[in-house]
Structures are given as structure tokens and as C-alpha cells.
């Protein structure tokens, strides 16, 4: 309600400054009246213009009047003016004739206006690279060379082929697929993009696995430069793909040739063993990279911002979503290529930053609607009103609406029935409201479309009429009858009658449900005093929430105290110092050092955690908790680390480098060994930061003295996103990169004053011995032991690798499934400082959302206990997925029967308990056992 969605709109001009911007917007005409369009789709059915559907990668067609996709938001049609015959040449106009809602508006014109805002967030996204211009890959020439986006469509069950994998040229079977990686990325020669697009390795893996799933015996080969799977659970997936038989070849494919009649494609490559090979494929998939589109470039210009040479916005590691212009923030791919969770995290971080300086005007512009006093109908006899919708001709064209209405009149408790052309139109709402009042209706059934899209609208109508919003039911006679039985009008009409009867049977048993309100303690507990914890604490405290910051060690700062520079070169110690100072000075933050959480109880809004400081326990009450306990470094046993003072971990090396230790200062030859402890069978994940870190250290060493010999032994270089720039720079400076295989690891031999590293060179396929003064091990980041303890204390899940498991890997990256708990930083997964800060800011945004729940009613569809039926057997306790049921202390003990109670905040209304209870002792409001049973019975009551 407090989001005004402006589609087909561009930003024209940005004036003003932080706190008060004046933005000029321009909206292009849609030619469809949004208030009137009911998205029935009649217009598209009659539109004669077939247009390639960009949404499906051009594989399918759409009409000139169309929805971008079936679930589009807003669900309103739009006219493509370039393709519309009426707009182009004044002919046709067929849509206007069939639109019963009279939503077509040829007079629609472009309009411009200005809005006043306090902050601006830019998230214009990206476009996939267009491989058309590069002929060596043959895209656009050979039909069986497709893009990753197109394959996505072919593999989708909702797509044009219903998920069947076919050869686009002739619909023939696909037996062999090749994925070509880095198309439009890491390729300055062909596309001018030096950066890595960060997501294509993983998306190719996903598609390869899906292809395997769809066509069991299909042979899939991936041609890649470095396999970049540094995200959470990504490496495991890569391993799985290898075990599944997907072939991986480290080789850049230079060009494709058609075989015979162009149905198949042929190319030559070098195998992992260094031998030339040639192979023929049915389908070649180009894994497209990302690039900034023209709109996003224009947006930067109009907002007064500079994009970097790659077309992205440069941001500071310490303020990852702030642009150079105060008050304007950026997130998503605009600040550099990233995946969905990364974008979601940044978006929340941007929301937090944008809200941060507007704290005093919070709630000044949000709108709320006043409803009339609710009429008490609990003791009234049910008086049901039924409205049967024609949906233009969508329903009435198939179903005899009058017959259904006539039938409904004779159903028990029904006192009023009428039909309407569009039940969801604005004026019908008003009409229904008046009818409820005039006729004293106390239940409403609307026979129309889906409750998934329209229930909220009609509930509002009930509230406006002074009725409880839950005294309502929909019969979905459009999606479930007229649309799917269009060729059997008799059966559709009979079905519609059944559906109405079932809805009436259910609504008669409906009870008014009181709003559920949560009492939320605004205090925040932050566990962990590293950068993530401190950022989170400051974010919450700056908004006025009291914060308890609990840190296990004796000082704040965490792992960042051992870091010197971000990958962009910013100095970390100064940043950490200032962060610590700000946290210490903040009046709303209480710091508990040498403290640990040992016990916790409660739930969202009302947690009670016990911390132990020394020997004394301390109880803290709080509404939410942000967990940021960090991670530790792997202590290596391998590569002679225990034996030699010249074999160092990356963090040790940084320290010696910084203090000018002579091992480093006088060293002539340095060897970095990557993946020490990472990507191993016992730790099958990538530590994400080590490639970048080693390369950065190598560059610094070279910059100090270009004559130094520096070698990096790696398995895959994972300088994802814009970090690729560092990799290129290192190679240009003469850093030697040697690829080693998991099964043929390097070894370190200790000499008297030097070390000898043996490795098999991947180009020469010959053993090589490198004399080194210092060997630096890029060691893994491993989960903190505290993770396990806290997981028990707060009953939060951990993943196989021992990191915390978030609620949803893509869409809820900083929340736990248990509400009121959030996470940030290394406890979630290894990540660099900028991503840690963004995640901490995102946790703040999500926690703030929860804390503002006090003003909000929660959906009242919850389970409740019927006390005189519950006998306290407790079966429901085990099945509740949210732990929302426990023993009622009032009833327990002594002679009294034991009862259960339900926590309405935790309950989500799934009804698992209701289906388990043998006594009808627990019910889900709005979906009670009786209501469902009555629906079943009435189905056969015709």
C-alpha cells in the first residue's frame, strides 16, 4: 500500500540533495487503463499481431497487447506501440471491441511529473551480453547455438517446450550438449569486457544438471577457463555435477563449424591432458555474461554519477551501497556483477542506508486506511450473499451465469444473489458494500476468479462494510471452470454450481477472527563484535533501538584486526579503529566483552537470553537477535607448515610483510599455494577470498621489487566479478600462474635456508621445481566453534559445512527460518569485507522490518486450541514445523488436565497440527476441520 508502482517509467532528471531530492519522471503510455483492465486476456486472443517474445528469449511469440509474463505484477495488459496496428496505421482496434471492461485507451499519452523524495536507490540491473556480433560462435547463424537464457526457457516446465530438451533446428533429440563459458566476460578481444560476470559458472552448472535430469543419457561437456563456484554450497554442487558425469574441459573454444546440414556443430579443443581433440555436438550453449545496458548508463548520467570503465558504479568497500552523491544508493548488478543472494543483500543494505538519514521523517508519508467499526455477527444466523461474476465474457461466455445465480438462491443460508459484469471493479465494490449494509448480510461468497489474486480486495470490501474480513469465501469458477472447460459449457456450469455450493458450505461455518497483534520488545541483541556485529549494532542503534553487543574475546574488531587492505586497496585498520570508536561512544549500545550467550528462550518480539560473563550469568531481554560470530582460519598440517618458519599462512605473511620481517623484505622468490584446506573432501567448499588475497599480495610484492619471482599455484583462479582486474594486472606484471590438479598436488621440500616447491606444469606437463624463500599457504576459512553452540541455544540450523543455514539461499539470505533471528558475516559463509558489511546492513534492514511489526496486524489465519476438546496428548507438538505449540503452564501440574497452547506469532497456519489431532482439539481459523469436511460433503450434496 505504501509502494507506488510506476511502470513504463524513466527517470528524467534528479535535482536537490540528500534528504530532499526532486526527481522528474516520465511515463510512457500503456494504452490500457490500469484501473479497468481485469487481465482477462480476451484482447490478446483477438490481437492479430504475433511478436517474438523477448521474455522467453524470442523462442515463443506474444501479441502486440500482452502481459510480460503470466504472473506479472501489476497483472495488467500493455500495448506495444511499435507493433500495434491501430497505433501504427489506424487499422485494427480488435482489442477495443472485445474488451468488456473498456480498458483500451488510445488517447493515452506520455506524461511527466516530479516527485519529492529523501533518498534514491538505483537498481537498474543488467542485460545479458548479445553474442550476435561475434561470428566465431555462430549465434544467430546456426539455430542450434543458443544462449544460456534460451536454454533456461527450453528447460522450464512452464516454457515453450514444457521442459523437453529439443534441437531448435528441427525439434530432433539432443544427445550431446556443449556449454561455452565466458561469452561476453573475461574477453576483451571479442567483447571488450575484461571482468568476470560471477554468475555464469553456477548457472551453467545448474542448467547442465537440469539437462541431465531432463534427458537422462544426454552427454554434457562444459568448456571453461576457471570454474568459479565460490558461493555457499556451490562447490558441493560442482562436485555433484562431476560425479553425475558432466565433463569439464579447461579450454577456450575459439570457433564453431557446422557439420553437414548445420544440424550439428563441431569444434576442436585441447583436453585437460593437453591433447588436441575434436567433437561434434547437437546443441551448443553460450553462457552469457552481464553488461550494463544503455538505460542504466543514462540513469547514471541523469543522476550525476560516473560509471567505471566496465560500466558499473564504483563503491567503497566500507560503504558498499553508497554512491559518490550523498543520499543516492545503488545495489544489485549496477555496482558489479553478482548473483541473486548478493543482489538481495545489497538491496536490503541500500534500504537501510536510505532509511538511515531519514529516521526523523519515518512514518510521515505512509498512508493508512480507516475502516468503520466492525459489526458483531458472532451470534447471528448466517445470512450469505452470493455475487456471481461474469468477468466480461471470460466466465459468462462459457458458464450460464444466470443459471448458477438461480441455483445459488436455493442454497441454505443464502439470502441474496446477484450477478455482475466485473465483480472486482471499483464500482462493484461499492455496490457490494451497500448490499451488505442494506440486507444485513453477514457472510459473502464471490464466484469469480482466484482467491490468490483477489481475496485481499474483497476482504477490504468486507471491512469497509463493517464486517470481519474473514467472513468471506471465493468460488474460483473462472480459473477452475470456464477457462479449463471452455468446450464443455454444460459441465463447466455444473462445476460452477458445485464450487459455489462448496464455498457457501464453508463460509457458513466461518467465524470472525480478531486481529492478531504482536508485542515486540524493541531491544536488539547482537552476538559477535567483529565488523559484521559492529556494523549491525551501529545500524540498529542509529535508528534508536537499544542494542546489547556481546563479544566473546576481550576486544572488538574480530578477524578484521588481521586484515590490512581490501581488494580495492582501502586501508582496513583505520576503518576498524573508527568503527570500534563509534560503537564504544554510542549511547544506545551496551558492550559485553568476554561474554557468551549460553541460554535462550522466547520467540520473535520477546526473547530472553542468558549470557555468561566470567562466572556471573546475566539476563538480557530483546525482541530480535543478529548473529555474527564470524569464523576462524584453518591451521594447516600440510606443505611443511609445522616444520619451517618460511612456510606461512596468508594472515601470518601479511603481518610479517607489514612489519618488514627480513624473510619477506629480502625474499627474492615467493610461492603461493591456493586451496589449502579448502575444496578438500573434508571441507568441500571454496573459501572465496583467498585467490583475490594471494593475487593482491603478489602484486604488492612485485610493486616493491619487480625482479622478485612470484608463482601462484592454483586449482581455479576465482577472482569473481570486478576482481578479475587484479588477476589481469598480476599476469601483466609477470606473476606466474601454474595450475595444479587435486590429484597431483604440489609438495614442499625444505632446504637449509630455502624451500623447493615441486609442481607439475600444466602447459609443459612436466615436473617443475621452484626455489622459494617463502611459501604462502592460502588457508581455508573454517566455521567458528561457537556456531554449533549458538545453533543449539537458538535452535537454528547449520549446513553440512558447519556454517549457519539461512531461511532461503536466494531470497532470504540474512534471515533464519525462526523469526526474529538474523545473521551476517563469516558465520554465514566465507566472504570479503565489503560483502560482510553489506550483509550486516541487510540484517539491520530485516530486523527493523520485524521490529516495526508492532504497528501491523498479523494475518489472523492461525491455529487455536479448543480447550474442551484438547486432552493434552501432545501429538501436535511434534509436527509443528515452527515450534509454535507448547504445554500450557496454566493447565499443567497437579490434578488439572494438561493442555497445549499456541503461540500466534510463531504459528503460520499450515494446519499440520489440525490434521494430526485425533480430537479436533486444535483448529486453524478459516480452514477448520469442520469447514473442510463440510466442503467435502457438500461436494456430493447436489
Amino acid at each position, binding site marked *: 500500500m505504501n509502494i507506488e508502482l510506476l511502470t513504463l517509467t524513466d527517470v528524467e532528471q534528479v535535482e536537490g540533495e540528500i534528504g530532499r531530492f526532486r526527481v522528474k519522471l516520465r511515463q510512457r503510455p500503456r494504452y490500457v487503463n490500469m484501473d479497468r483492465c481485469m487481465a482477462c*486476456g480476451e484482447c490478446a486472443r483477438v490481437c492479430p499481431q504475433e511478436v517474438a517474445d523477448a521474455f522467453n528469449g524470442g523462442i515463443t511469440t506474444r501479441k502486440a497487447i500482452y502481459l510480460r509474463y*503470466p*504472473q506479472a505484477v501489476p497483472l495488467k495488459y500493455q500495448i506495444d506501440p511499435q507493433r500495434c496496428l491501430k497505433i501504427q496505421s489506424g487499422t485494427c482496434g480488435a482489442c477495443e471491441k472485445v474488451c468488456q471492461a473498456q480498458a483500451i485507451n488510445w488517447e493515452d499519452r506520455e506524461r511527466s511529473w516530479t516527485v519529492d523524495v529523501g533518498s534514491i536507490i538505483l537498481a537498474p540491473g543488467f542485460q545479458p551480453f548479445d553474442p550476435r556480433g561475434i561470428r566465431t560462435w555462430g549465434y544467430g547463424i546456426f539455430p542450434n547455438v543458443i544462449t544460456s537464457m534460451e536454454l533456461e526457457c527450453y528447460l*522450464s*516446465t*512452464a516454457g515453450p517446450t*514444457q*521442459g523437453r530438451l529439443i534441437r531448435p533446428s528441427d525439434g530432433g533429440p539432443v544427445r550431446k550438449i556443449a556449454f561455452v563459458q565466458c561469452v561476453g566476460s573475461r574477453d576483451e578481444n571479442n567483447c571488450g569486457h575484461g571482468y568476470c560476470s560471477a554468475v555464469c559458472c553456477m548457472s551453467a552448472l545448474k542448467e547442465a544438471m537440469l539437462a541431465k535430469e531432463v534427458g537422462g543419457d544426454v552427454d554434457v561437456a562444459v568448456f571453461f577457463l576457471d570454474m568459479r563456484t565460490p558461493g555457499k554450497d556451490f562447490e558441493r554442487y560442482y562436485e555433484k555435477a562431476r560425479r553425475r558425469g558432466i565433463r569439464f574441459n579447461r579450454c577456450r573454444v575459439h570457433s564453431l563449424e557446422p557439420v553437414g546440414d548445420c544440424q550439428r556443430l563441431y569444434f576442436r579443443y585441447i583436453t585437460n591432458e593437453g591433447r588436441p581433440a575434436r567433437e561434434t555436438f547437437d546443441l551448443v550453449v553460450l553462457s552469457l555474461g552481464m553488461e550494463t545496458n544503455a538505460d542504466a548508463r543514462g540513469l547514471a548520467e541523469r543522476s550525476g554519477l560516473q560509471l567505471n570503465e566496465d560500466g558499473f558504479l564504483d563503491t567503497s568497500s566500507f560503504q558498499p551501497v553508497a554512491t559518490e552523491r550523498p543520499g543516492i544508493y545503488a545495489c544489485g548488478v549496477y555496482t558489479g556483477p553478482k548473483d541473486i543472494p548478493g543482489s538481495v543483500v545489497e538491496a536490503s543494505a541500500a534500504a537501510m542506508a536510505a532509511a538511515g538519514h531519514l529516521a526523523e521523517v519515518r512514518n510521515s508519508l505512509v498512508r493508512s486506511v480507516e475502516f468503520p467499526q466492525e459489526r458483531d455477527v458472532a451470534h447471528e444466523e448466517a445470512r450469505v450473499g452470493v455475487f456471481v461474476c461474469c468477468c466480461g465474457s471470460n466466465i459468462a461466455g462459457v458458464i450460464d451465469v444466470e443459471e448458477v445465480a438461480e441455483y445459488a438462491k436455493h442454497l441454505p443460508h443464502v439470502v441474496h444473489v446477484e450477478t455482475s459484469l466485473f465483480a472486482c471493479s471499483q464500482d462493484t465494490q461499492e455496490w457490494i458494500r451497500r448490499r451488505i449494509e442494506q440486507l444485513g448480510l453477514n457472510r459473502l461468497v464471490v464466484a469469480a476468479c*482466484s*482467491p*490468490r*489474486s483477489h481475496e485481499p480486495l474483497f476482504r477490504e470490501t468486507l471491512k469497509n462494510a463493517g464486517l470481519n474480513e474473514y467472513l468471506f469465501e471465493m468460488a*474460483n469458477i*473462472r*480459473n*477452475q*471452470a470456464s*477457462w*479449463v*472447460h*471452455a*468446450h*464443455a459449457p454444460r*459441465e*463447466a456450469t*455444473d*462445476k460452477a454450481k*458445485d*464450487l459455489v455450493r*462448496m464455498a457457501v458450505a464453508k463460509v457458513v461455518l466461518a467465524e470472525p477472527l480478531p486481529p492478531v497483534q504482536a508485542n515486540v520488545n524493541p531491544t536488539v541483541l547482537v552476538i559477535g563484535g567483529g565488523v559484521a556485529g559492529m556494523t549491525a549494532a551501529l545500524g540498529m542503534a542509529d535508528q534508536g533501538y537499544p542494542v546489547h553487543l556481546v563479544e566473546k574475546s576481550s576486544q572488538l574488531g574480530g578477524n578484521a584486526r588481521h586484515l590490512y587492505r581490501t581488494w580495492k586497496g582501502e586501508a582496513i585498520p583505520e576503518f576498524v579503529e573508527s568503527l570500534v570508536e563509534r560503537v564504544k561512544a554510542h549511547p544506545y549500545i551496551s558492550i559485553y566483552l568476554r561474554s557468551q550467550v549460553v541460554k535462550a528462550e522466547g520467540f520473535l518480539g520477546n526473547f530472553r537470553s542468558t549470557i555468561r560473563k566470567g562466572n556471573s550469568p546475566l539476563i538480557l531481554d530483546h525482541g530480535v537477535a543478529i548473529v555474527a560470530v564470524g569464523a576462524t582460519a584453518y591451521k594447516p598440517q600440510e606443505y611443511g607448515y609445522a616444520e619451517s618458519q618460511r612456510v606461512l599462512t596468508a594472515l601470518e605473511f601479511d603481518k610479517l610483510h607489514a612489519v618488514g620481517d627480513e624473510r619477506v623484505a629480502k625474499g627474492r622468490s615467493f610461492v603461493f599455494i591456493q586451496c589449502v584446506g579448502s575444496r578438500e573432501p573434508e571441507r568441500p567448499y571454496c573459501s572465496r577470498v583467498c585467490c583475490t588475497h594471494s593475487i593482491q599480495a603478489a602484486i604488492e610484492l612485485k610493486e616493491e621489487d619487480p625482479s622478485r619471482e612470484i608463482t601462484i599455484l592454483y586449482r581455479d583462479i576465482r577472482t569473481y566479478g570486478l576482481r578479475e582486474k587484479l588477476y589481469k594486472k598480476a599476469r601483466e606484471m609477470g606473476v606466474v600462474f601454474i595450475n595444479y590438479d587435486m590429484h597431483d598436488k604440489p609438495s614442499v621440500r625444505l632446504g637449509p635456508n630455502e624451500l623447493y616447491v615441486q609442481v607439475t606444469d600444466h602447459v609443459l606437463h612436466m615436473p617443475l621445481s621452484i626455489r622459494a624463500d617463502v611459501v604462502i599457504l592460502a588457508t581455508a576459512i573454517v566455521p567458528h566453534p561457537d556456531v554449533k553452540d549458538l545453533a543449539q541455544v537458538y535452535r537454528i540450523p547449520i549446513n553440512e559445512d558447519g556454517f549457519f543455514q539461512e531461511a532461503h539461499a536466494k531470497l532470504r539470505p540474512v534471515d533464519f*527460518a525462526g523469526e526474529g533471528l538474523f545473521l551476517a558475516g563469516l558465520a554465514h559463509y566465507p566472504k570479503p569485507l565489503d560483502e560482510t558489511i553489506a550483509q550486516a546492513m541487510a540484517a539491520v534492514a530485516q530486523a527493523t522490518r520485524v521490529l516495526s511489526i508492532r504497528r501491523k496486524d498479523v494475518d489472523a*489465519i492461525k491455529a487455536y486450541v479448543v480447550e474442551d476438546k484438547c486432552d493434552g496428548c501432545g501429538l501436535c507438538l511434534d*509436527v509443528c*514445523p*515452527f515450534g509454535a505449540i507448547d504445554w500450557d503452564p496454566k493447565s499443567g501440574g497437579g490434578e488439572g488436565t494438561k493442555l497445549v497452547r499456541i503461540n500466534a506469532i510463531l504459528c*503460520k*497456519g*499450515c*494446519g*499440520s497440527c*489440525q*490434521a*494430526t489431532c485425533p480430537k479436533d482439539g486444535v483448529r*486453524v481459523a478459516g*480452514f477448520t*476441520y469442520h469447514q*473442510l*469436511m463440510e*466442503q*467435502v*460433503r457438500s*461436494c*456430493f450434496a447436489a
Partner: protein
Amino acid sequence: MKHRFRIIAFACHWCAYAAADLAGTARMAYPASVRIIRVLCSSMVHPHLVLEAFQRGADGVLVMGCREGECHYLDGNLRAKDRLSALEDMLETMGIESERFRLVWCSSAEAERFTQACVEMEQTLASLG
């Protein structure tokens, strides 16, 4: 196929019901014998409801939820699976062929899977007579 069957489909709000909506939007025809009852989660379907449906004369019953691992309520569909799978034996002892009862998992975008399940159920019923 003159005989008219009656199939009850309990469909979870988040996935199966959404798939049914999409089948409508896409005008994908399926047997008119199907009557959908919306539930919030497949785990909400009490075994009594299934038995009652058969008792009242249902020829087939479908319980449809999210795909495994994608349940809106964490693992409600798995719970439903555990609970309702036990019904099959019970149905057999009552003289109802267990084929008349099926659990189906589909995502909100899989209209095809939804209609397919309905078609298959009707075919099963036809073969059972």
C-alpha cells in the same frame, strides 16, 4: 466415457492451487470431474477428509502440495506424505483400490504437471471401472 467421475483434489495454496490457476490462465483443459478444495498446506489434510470423500462417493482423491524441499511451511509436504501414505493400506482393507488416492507434488509454475495428474487420475479411474 459416459460415466461421470468425481475427483476431489486438495490443493495447497502456495503451489498446487497456484498451478491450477495457471492452468486456467493458459486455458489448459483437464477433466471436469475435478473439484479443488484449497488448503494452506498439504499437511493440513486430515486423513478423515480423504476417507469422508470416498465414503460420500468420490471416485478418486488427489492431495497436491509443493515440490519436495520447496514447502512453504518448511517440510509440511513431507509430513503429509508420511501421514497420508499410510492411508493406502487402509483404503485397500476397506475395499478401495489404493490407485484411487494419489499424492502429487508440483510447483506454482507447473500447470502441466497439475493437469497431467488430473488426466492420469481420470485414466486410472476409467481403467478401474
